[in-house]
């Protein structure tokens, strides 16, 4: 099956800074992809390009369409939740359901109502009277009721307390995600989604610095706790990153045999955040 999103040489500049610098990647259907990068790395710009919200240079195909020319056709199959609550504050819950039902051919109102009935959100309330967590629940209810092929989430849980954050991702996984759908998510809080993701895309300064599946991460990257007596031996193997933890060194290796590393110390699969720091700092060095 052809890739759902195919980006070739995306470029986008804001004045002197490049938000996207010849960026290429592709995303297959049925994956949950985390697009992860430091502030200003080009995450949001990449999402905006995919959603047809910003002009850019380069080749980009989303569901076989060009988002620059076919944004509104594309939005029949793409859903989008932005970093902060963007639901209009004046609108009533009932109205936003009616509106989506009226203009979106793939919206299932019954499904949204069913989801909302499990929350404390009253249908007659205005968005501005809801708490931030409730607004996110409402937006999630809307999105889950749309039979879309691609869901784009830009920092969807920012500013939410931990209960809502956990609920958000478990709803997505249990009630929404299946092989037909693809989710592309950006976040700062890597830890809370690392068990959800199937694929990783690290972006730094407009460039993709890591593009692999979670399975490949486990195969390819190993973190080893090395005592002082073996440190030189370990460094000879070319770690991509090194940090101190309680007097011992933690070294991160890429494409070095597991058996070899286990002789140096305790070897384990690195956390996404450690891998991220290694890749981003490595890219800066």
């Amino acid at each position, binding site marked *: 099956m052809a890739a759902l999103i195919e980006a070739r040489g995306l470029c986008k500049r804001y004045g002197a800074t490049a938000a996207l610098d010849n960026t290429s990647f592709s995303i297959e259907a049925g994956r949950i992809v985390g697009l992860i990068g430091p502030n200003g790395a080009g995450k949001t710009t990449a999402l905006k390009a995919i959603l047809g919200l910003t002009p850019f240079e380069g080749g980009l195909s989303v569901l076989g369409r060009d988002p620059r020319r076919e944004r509104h056709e594309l*939005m*029949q199959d793409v859903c989008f939740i932005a970093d902060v609550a963007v639901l209009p504050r004046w609108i009533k819950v009932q109205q936003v359901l009616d509106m*989506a039902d009226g203009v979106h051919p793939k919206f299932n109102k019954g499904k949204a109502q069913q989801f909302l009935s499990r929350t404390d959100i009253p249908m007659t309330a205005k968005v501005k009277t809801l708490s931030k967590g409730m607004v996110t629940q409402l937006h999630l209810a809307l999105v889950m009721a749309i039979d879309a092929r691609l869901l784009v989430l830009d920092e969807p849980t920012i500013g939410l307390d931990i209960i809502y954050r956990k609920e958000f991702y478990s709803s997505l996984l249990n009630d929404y995600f299946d092989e037909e759908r693809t989710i592309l998510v950006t976040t700062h809080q890597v830890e809370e989604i690392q068990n959800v993701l199937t694929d990783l895309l690290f972006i730094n300064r407009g460039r993709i610095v890591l593009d692999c599946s979670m399975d490949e991460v486990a195969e390819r990257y190993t973190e080893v706790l090395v005592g002082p007596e073996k440190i030189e031996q370990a460094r000879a193997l070319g770690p991509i990153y090194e940090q101190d933890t309680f007097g011992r060194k933690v070294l991160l290796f890429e494409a070095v045999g597991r058996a070899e590393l286990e002789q140096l110390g305790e070897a384990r699969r690195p956390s996404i955040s450690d891998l991220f720091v290694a890749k981003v700092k490595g890219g800066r060095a």
Partner: protein
Amino acid sequence: MSGFLWLIRRELWEHRAFIYVPLVVGALMVVVSVLFSGEIIAALEHAHGKITALAEEERAAIFSALIGQFAVAIALFMTFVVLLYLLDCLHAERVDRSILFWKSLPVSDAKTVLSKLAMAMVVAPLIVLASALFFGIVEMIVLTIHFAAAGLGPWEYLWGPSRIFGTITFLIYAVVVQALWHFPLFAWLLLVSAFAKRAVFLWAILPPVVVIWLEKVIFDTHWFADQIGERVVGVFPLAFEFGSGGHQIVITDEETGIELTARLSELINPGPFLSSPALWIGLVIGALLIAAAIWVRRYRDESI
């Protein structure tokens, strides 16, 4: 097309003023006439002789004047509602970032901008018409009581045949003509709303003022200012025929100087209006400004 109607509904949900301003203005006018019932009845008794002397056709003027009075008052307030709305609608959605939600729906930017234009050009005039007729007829009922109390037969003087249709025809013509004439102004406001980051009022007013000033300084002329003035009020001499036709029945009240035109529909004069280059040039400029507004909403990057 039903999608477009949803966009209109959504505008009416957000901008309640389109509904309640005409209701409040119309209701207030009726309330005033009820409160001043005593004075009105006394005035009617005073003018008893004059009213009974009116010819059948002249009596129709009372109805037309009444509806017209409501239409003018409601239209005046509605104009403010519409101008503020146009200047705000594409700006506010960027300020509160709800544009990201609206853009997540499969609705084209052209459709969205046209729905906002339709609020000014179609929905607002329809509301003015409907509310003027509604309150005009409510007021007729109030006046029926006043006439009866003054000893004048209301059926004879107020509710004559074929008065409603002529008046409605006139009002429809007036709002259509006005909307077409004002189209470039509306389009300019929408473009400013889509374009300006802040200070939409200044952006709406300053560029024309600068052009007028430059023209004054460089050429010492005021062509552009004249064009704008014409655009604001110039439709009436162009689209209506006042005073000249001998077939009109005008009742002048010597005491107040008020003139009532009996058959409003005879003021309709579309020939000079439709053949005026100013109308067609205005429509073309308006269309270009709307296209620009759609383009700006489509390609503007909110993160800059």
